[in-house]
C-alpha cells in the first residue's frame, strides 16, 4: 500500500512537470493510467502472473526520477562503447530514458519517409501519426507496469517505416544508465511498420555507473500487412539493477515478426511480452535465452494471442542457471474461438548448474478452437552425464566439455537469429559469459562484483 501511495503522491505532486508539453489526449491517457494503477496497485505474491517475482520492494527504494534530461558528465569513449560494435547500424542512444542527440536533430527524417528519433519530439511534429498508435497497443488496464509507465514516461524512441520501405541498416538502440544517485527510468518506445515495410531493431542495455537503476520500459510495436520486423533485445546491466520490460506487439495480416531477448547480466529482470496476431496469416517467432549466476533473477512472461485464423507462432526459451540464481518462465498461448488452422509451438528448456539455483516454469495453453496444432514442452535438468563422459573419453577436459555442452545448448536459440553478423557477435558474448569472462573492456568495473 505504502509504495503505491508514494507513486501516487509523486504523480500528483509533479503533475505539471510530468506532462508539461502533453497534448490533450496524452494528458487523458496519463490520468486514466494513474487511475488504473491506483486500482491494481503493485502486483503481490498472490497474483498468479507475479507469483515468482515480487517487485514492490524494489520500487519502494530511494529512487530519483528525472522529468527532463539531466546534464551528466560522461566519458565520450565510454558512452559509445557497446556490446555489438561491429554492426553497420544507425545508432540511437538513450541516456537515462531520454533520447541523447548531442550532434543530431531530435527527430531524423530520411528521404524515403523513414522517421526515427525522440518519441516526445515526434508527438509534437507528427501528432496524428503518434496518436494513432500510442497507448493503443499496450493497455494500462492489462498490466500495472504499463499503467505506471504510461503515467510517468517522458521520452523514448520513435521509429516509423512507411509503406513498402525497407530499412537497409538496422536500428541500434543503446539504453545507457549513468547517474550519481539511484534512479528510476521509465521510457517508452513506439515502432510502427506500415504495409510491406521491413526493419531490424537491436536494443542493448548498459549500466555505466554502479548506482542502483530501476528501469520500467514499454515498447509498443505495430507491424502492418506483410511487414517484416526483427527485434532483438540484449540485456546486460549490472547485478544491482532491476529491469521491467513490457513489449506489446500487434501484428496485422501476413506480417512476420521475430522477437528475441538475450539476458546476460542484470539483477532482477522481468520481461513481459505480449504478441497479438490480429490479422490472418501472421507469423511470429520469439526467442529467449538467459544465463544467470549469483543472485540474479530472470522472469519471462509471454502471452501469444492467436486472434485470427492461419497464424503461426513459435517460442524457444532456454535458460542456464548457476549459483543462487532463480529463473521463471510463464508462457501462455491463447487461441481464440475463431482462430482455426492455428499452429503454435512453445518450448522451454533449462539447465540447473548448482544446488541453490531454482527454476519455475509454467507453459500454458488456452485453446478455444478445434482445428489447431498446438504443443508445448518444458524441461528442467542438468548437463548430460553421458555427453560429458563421451567428450572426456576423447581427451577433452571436463570443464571444457561442460562449456561445449552449454554452448550447444544455447546455440539452439542463437542459431535462430537471422542476421549473421549479429548472430556471430551474440555467440561470442554468450561464450564469454559462460566462461565468466567480461564481455566489455577490461577497465570496466561493472560486471566484476
Amino acid at each position: 500500500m505504502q509504495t503505491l501511495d508514494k507513486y501516487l503522491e509523486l504523480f500528483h505532486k509533479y503533475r505539471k512537470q510530468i506532462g508539461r508539453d502533453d497534448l490533450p489526449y496524452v494528458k487523458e491517457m496519463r490520468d486514466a493510467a494513474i487511475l488504473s494503477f491506483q486500482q491494481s496497485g503493485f502486483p503481490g505474491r498472490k497474483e498468479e502472473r507475479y507469483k515468482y517475482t515480487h517487485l514492490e520492494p524494489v520500487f519502494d527504494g530511494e529512487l530519483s526520477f528525472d522529468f527532463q534530461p539531466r546534464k551528466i558528465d560522461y566519458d565520450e569513449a565510454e558512452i559509445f562503447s557497446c556490446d555489438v560494435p561491429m554492426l553497420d547500424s544507425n545508432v540511437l542512444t538513450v541516456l537515462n530514458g531520454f533520447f541523447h542527440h548531442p550532434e543530431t536533430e531530435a527527430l531524423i527524417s530520411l528521404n524515403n519517409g523513414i522517421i526515427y528519433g525522440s518519441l516526445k519530439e515526434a508527438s509534437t511534429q507528427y501528432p496524428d501519426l503518434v496518436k494513432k498508435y500510442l497507448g493503443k497497443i499496450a493497455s494500462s488496464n492489462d498490466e500495472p507496469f504499463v499503467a505506471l509507465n504510461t503515467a510517468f514516461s517522458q521520452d523514448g524512441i520513435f521509429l516509423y517505416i512507411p509503406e513498402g520501405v525497407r530499412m537497409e541498416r538496422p536500428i541500434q538502440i543503446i539504453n545507457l544508465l549513468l547517474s550519481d544517485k539511484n534512479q528510476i527510468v521509465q521510457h517508452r518506445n513506439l515502432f510502427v511498420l506500415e504495409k510491406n515495410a521491413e526493419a531490424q531493431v537491436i536494443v542493448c542495455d548498459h549500466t555505466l555507473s554502479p548506482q542502483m537503476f530501476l528501469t520500467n520500459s514499454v515498447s509498443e510495436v505495430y507491424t502492418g500487412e506483410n511487414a517484416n520486423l526483427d527485434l532483438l533485445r540484449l540485456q546486460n546491466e549490472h547485478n544491482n539493477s532491476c529491469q521491467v520490460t513490457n513489449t506489446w506487439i500487434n501484428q496485422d495480416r501476413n506480417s512476420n515478426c521475430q522477437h528475441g531477448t538475450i539476458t546476460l547480466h542484470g539483477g532482477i529482470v522481468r520481461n513481459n511480452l505480449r504478441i497479438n496476431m490480429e490479422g490472418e496469416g501472421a507469423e511470429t517467432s520469439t526467442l529467449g535465452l538467459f544465463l544467470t549466476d549469483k543472485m540474479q533473477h530472470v522472469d519471462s512472461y509471454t502471452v501469444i494471442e492467436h486472434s485470427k485464423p492461419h497464424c503461426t507462432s513459435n517460442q524457444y526459451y532456454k535458460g542456464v542457471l548457476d549459483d543462487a540464481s532463480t529463473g521463471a518462465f510463464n508462457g501462455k498461448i491463447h487461441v481464440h474461438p475463431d482462430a482455426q488452422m492455428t499452429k503454435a509451438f512453445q518450448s522451454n528448456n533449462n539447465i540447473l548448474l548448482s544446488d541453490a539455483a531454482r527454476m519455475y516454469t509454467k507453459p500454458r495453453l488456452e485453446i478455444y478452437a478445434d482445428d489447431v496444432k498446438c504443443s508445448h514442452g518444458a524441461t528442467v535438468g542438468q548437463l548430460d552425464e553421458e555427453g560429458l563422459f563421451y567428450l572426456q573419453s576423447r581427451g577433452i577436459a571436463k570443464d571444457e566439455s561442460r562449456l561445449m555442452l552449454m554452448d550447444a545448448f544455447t546455440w539452439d536459440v542463437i542459431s535462430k537469429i537471422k542476421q549473421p553478423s549479429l548472430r556471430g557477435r551474440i555467440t561470442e558474448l554468450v561464450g564469454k559469459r559462460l566462461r565468466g569472462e567480461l564481455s566489455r573492456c577490461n577497465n570496466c568495473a561493472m560486471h566484476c562484483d
Partner: protein
Amino acid sequence: MTDQEKILNEVTDSDYKFGFQTNIDTETIPKGLNEEVVRIISAKKEEPKWLTESRLKAFRHWQTMKMPQWAHLRIPEINYQDIIFYAAPKQEAKYENMDEVDPELIDTFNRLGIPLEEQKQLAGVAVDAVMDSVSVKTTFQDTLADKGIIFCSFSDAVKNHPDLIKKYMGSVVPYTDNYFAALNSAVFSDGSFCYIPKGVHCPMELSTYFRINAANTGQFERTLIVAEDDSFVSYLEGCTAPMRDENQLHAAIVEIVAGENTEVKYSTVQNWYPGNKEGKGGIYNFVTKRGICRGDNSKISWTQVETGSAVTWKYPSCILKGNNSVGEFYSVAVTNNYQQADTGTKMIHIGKNTRSTIISKGISAGKSENSYRGLVKVLKSAENARNYSQCDSLLLGDKCGAHTFPYLEVDNRSAVVEHEATTSKIGEDQIFYCNQRGIDTENAISLIVNGYAKEVLNKLPMEFAVEAQKLLAITLEGSVG
C-alpha cells in the same frame, strides 16, 4: 453436414444413461449448515467426542475461508444454507443375507451393472456399496479379515478402530488444506476405510461404489487407505448418479498412507450426472485426493476416468517423501455439452531418487471446457528426482476449450523434469486412412479415440476396464462401437 459433423452431433446429443432414481425413503436433516448441524451429524453417527470436536474445529476454520477462484471454471455461487448435509437410507438394518436387502436397491445395482448377488462369484471383487451416506452392504469381509485386512465403512471404523482413525485421519489432507477439505472435515457423512497390515498382499481388488440418491443432498465421503510396510492393495472407486435438475454438491477427501516397500493403486471411474444439454443441473465435484509415500521404495498410482459431473475440481496428488518412491497419475477426462473440468495432479518430490509419471488425456466436445492443471515440485532434498509429464488434448467441435496449466518448480540441479503437451483435433488424414481401408467414419473416430485413451485405460484393473469403456462409449455415443 458431413458425416463427421453428424457423428460429432450425435456424440454431443447423447443422453445420460444412468439417469434413474431409486425410491427409497431417506432420513434427512433440515437444510442449512451451522454448528448445530455439525453436531447433529456427529450425534446421528454416534461419534466419540474427539471426532465431534475435530468436526467443529474444521467447521470454524471453514467459516473463515473463501471459495477458491483460481480454477479455470465458472461456478455459480453455492448456497450452503440450501443444502441438506446428511441423508441416510432409512432401512438401516444390518443384513444377514442377500434376501433381506431391499429389492429395489438390488435392482438399482443391477441396472448399474454391478449385481450385488453376483458379487461373490465375481472375480475377487469385494464391494462396500455406499448408498448416499451410510454403508449398506459390505461383502467379502470375512475373506479379508482372515488376512488381517480391515475394509469397512468409515463410521464402522470410527467405532471399531478408533486408534487407527485418530492416528491417520487428516494426516495427509488436514482440515486446513483447502476450502472443500475443511467443509468435508466438518460434515463428512461416511466413506470407506481400508487398512492393510504389514507384509500383506491384498488378494482382491477392493472397490466402493458411490451414488448420490436423495434429492438436494450433498454427499461428503471420506476415504482413508492405510497400507503398512511391504503390503499391496488395489482400490477401485466408481461413481454413477441419477438424473437431477438441481445442482448437487460433492466434496470428498481421499487419503492414502503408504509405508515402506508398499504399493497402492487407486482407480476411479467417475460418472456423476453432468447436467443436461443446456448445461442445467449436474454434480459439482470438488475432491481432494492425496497420497503420501512415507517409507522408502513405495509407490502410489492414481488412475482416473472422468466422464461426468457438471464441474470437476480434482487433483489426485502424491507426496514422495520416502527415498526411491514412485508416483503415477494416469487420467482420461472427457467433457461434453456444458461440462467443465479442471483436473490434474501434484507431485511433490521430497525423497532421493523419487520418480513420477503423469499421463493426462483430455477430450472435449460440445461447449465444454477441459483443463489440465498440474504441479511438479522438486525440493532441495530430492536428489536425482525424475518426472515425465505428458498432457494431450483432443478437441471434438469448435465451441469447446482445452487448456493446459502445468507448473514446474525445480529446486535441485540433479532433477530431470520434462513436460510435453499437445492439442489437436482428430486428423482428417487419420480418418481418411481408416476410410480407405473400409472402416466407416463412425468406427474410425471410435478407433482413434480408443487408441488415444488406451495408454490410460490399460492401467485400469480388468474388472474396471469394462465399465470404463462403457462410460466412454456413453459419453461419445455414436462414435464408439
